[in-house]
């Protein structure tokens, strides 16, 4: 009976967790960036998840898995590229005060996909993380807080700052483009 359970356990785990492979990879990819590292992270995260599987109490399986992917990504960054975890964003450099808000909305509206992706890539890892979990995975503040292991207030301020910086980066790039074109 115990062996039977052991076997079923793997099957159940796979059924519950493998549908979230894209989400896992997407998060890992945005956090560690290099495709090969992201694949390593996903494999390691699934192994970790399997070890913790018995402790999984139900709830949103994807959010549960993403928390593990997130922690695994950070482990890799700590080992391979600790500088990225320490990086801070210099807001003053990118702030373009000459743009009027109405222009900003328009510039973002017409921004090219590539420049949006580049801007997201340039955010500090913790901001990238909050945005990916919120915008691509639609996690609630509470789920993001659990995944990042921070209070909800921190999630809220992280998201606000992340979006402000993202906006500045996109607007800055767009303004530079326009200047070049003139």
């Amino acid at each position, binding site marked *: 009976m115990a062996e*039977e359970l052991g076997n079923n356990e*793997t099957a159940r785990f796979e059924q519950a967790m493998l549908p979230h492979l894209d989400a896992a990879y997407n998060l890992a990819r945005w956090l560690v960036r290099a495709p090969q590292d992201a694949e390593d992270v996903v494999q390691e995260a699934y192994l970790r998840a399997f070890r913790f599987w018995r402790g999984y109490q139900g709830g949103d399986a994807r959010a549960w898995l993403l928390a593990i992917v997130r922690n695994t990504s950070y482990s890799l960054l700590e080992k391979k590229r600790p500088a990225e975890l320490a990086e801070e964003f210099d807001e003053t450099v990118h702030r373009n005060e000459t743009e009027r808000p109405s222009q900003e909305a328009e510039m973002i509206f017409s921004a090219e996909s590539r420049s949006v992706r580049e801007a997201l890539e340039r955010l500090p890892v913790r901001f990238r993380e909050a945005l990916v979990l919120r915008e691509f995975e639609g996690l609630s503040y509470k789920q993001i807080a659990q995944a990042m292991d921070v209070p909800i207030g921190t999630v*809220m301020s992280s998201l*606000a700052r992340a979006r402000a910086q993202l906006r500045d980066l996109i607007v800055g790039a767009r303004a530079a483009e326009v200047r070049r074109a003139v």
Partner: protein
Amino acid sequence: MPCKDKEVLLHAYLDGELDLRSSLEFEEHLKTCAECKEELQTQQNLRKALQGAEAYHRAPGGLEARVRKALPQSSARVVALRGRMRTVEWLALAAAIAIAVFLGMRIATTRMHGADDLVAQEVVASHVRSLQPGHLMDVASTDQHTVKPWFNGRIDFAPTVNDFSAQGFPLTGGRLDSIEGRSVAALVYQRRKHVINVLIWPDESKTESAARTEESNGFHLVHWQSGGMNYWMISDIDAADLRELAGLLGH
């Protein structure tokens, strides 16, 4: 720039995280504050830009196989089969599995022992996989003379293929499957719309054994060895029905 004290509120509003009262209060504020209103528009555009930026990285092909392989007792073999599955099929699969697991938990399972245990688990997995859309049959035919030649060149043995429509077990097709890492012939029979998988592969020990009936995960399994072949039958129908088919198959 939005009001300093409203910035976090604005994002929570954007994300639908405010309770009703705070939400209404913020909407009141928006009516009188052009700057916050602008900012909200900007942030809504930013969200659209992000979501339209093709910035979602889907898992590369092969990653699923790699993950399955790394997991204990994994069923890596299935992966090749599912590459083409679409979301709808996934949902159907998830439902089928959920039902299977549910039944598995509801119906008392019989203990199984030894090496048969592992085979039984693989047979159950094979059966569950076969119920996924598009996986039941490689060759769909009720004609035994179509099904039998189909196996030629695909496996290194010749299973006996007979149609038992007259006895209430129509043959509906066959496919290749894999048990314990070797290719096996899977014959698909039906009984009152229930699927019966019969897995056949050579038995190295060449023993003759009586049919044994097991129950696992809510499925009935009947297996025996005869004429140098292993036979494993599995279905959700009654064990008695299965034994009847076993009799027809020459046990």
